[in-house]
């Protein structure tokens, strides 16, 4: 188990996730988000996309997972923020690269980039914070 003393500004971490053909449907089943734009390629095309697009919240779940693995305890995540910069489509691979930017006041703060296989940002302003004061009750 990591403690606060194990974190340093400048630490880096990464995670890679693929949006395979059925991922939007699998995520719909796990999350309850069956908005047709994520399920029906025709609806995706009407929205100007190549087909069905992944739920932004799945990309955010991947981001949280990347951070939780670095923090070593998913229950310490106190804050998550993202802007969805570009949809993730079936066939895309997303690489998350995180960097610890601050360790202060019992909190560890990270900034994360999330880019597809073309190097385009799918998230912007993605940050996470873990709280190390107290722990969960």
């Amino acid at each position: 188990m990591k403690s606060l003393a194990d974190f340093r500004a400048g630490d880096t971490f990464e995670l890679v996730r693929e949006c395979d053909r059925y991922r939007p449907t699998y995520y719909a089943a796990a999350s309850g988000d069956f908005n047709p734009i994520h399920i029906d390629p025709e609806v995706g095309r009407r929205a100007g996309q190549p087909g069905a697009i992944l739920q932004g919240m799945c990309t955010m779940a991947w981001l949280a997972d990347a951070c939780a693995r670095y923090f070593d305890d998913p229950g310490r995540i106190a804050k998550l923020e993202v802007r969805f910069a570009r949809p993730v489509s079936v066939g895309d691979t997303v690489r998350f690269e995180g960097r610890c930017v601050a360790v202060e006041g019992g909190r560890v703060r990270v900034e994360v980039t999330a880019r597809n296989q073309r190097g385009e940002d799918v998230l912007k302003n993605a940050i996470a914070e873990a709280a190390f004061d107290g722990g969960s009750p």
Partner: protein
Amino acid sequence: MIDRKHLGRRYGPFRYVVGLEDIRDFATTISGGVPGRVFAGAPADPPHPWHVDEAAARVSPHGGIIAPPTYCVRFAMRPFALACSDPALGIDLVRLLHGEQAFEYGDVVRPGDVVETTGEIVDLREKAGMDFLTVRSTTTNQRGKVVVVGTWKAVVRP
């Protein structure tokens, strides 16, 4: 353009009972696995054991299985989804994009928790022909503790 009279419109409360297999399905699916966990092998990159393995979670600082942070979509997204599809607002879902998302977390979520979510439209504005809708959700658990406050922002393209 969405009528600004809907600012302050509220949704909920909605009650949700958190399930162990729900949590396992969610954690497995975001690790590349399949919900239901049948007709599929284990994901290549296994989920954190504290989301799926009761024995490992029992000896963790949490003393039992906890949900992944964004598992909260199962209960906390409902006011946002209802606002986006509310006939009174008249948004065409095909033109709607999830623009931004933020969560502030309190208590961890565990199997058996009974959580209650309410939501409110806290911002509505128009810029460059696009509508921006913000819903704030607040979820509390059976002990009256805040579990998560979500800020959900949608963009509606012309």
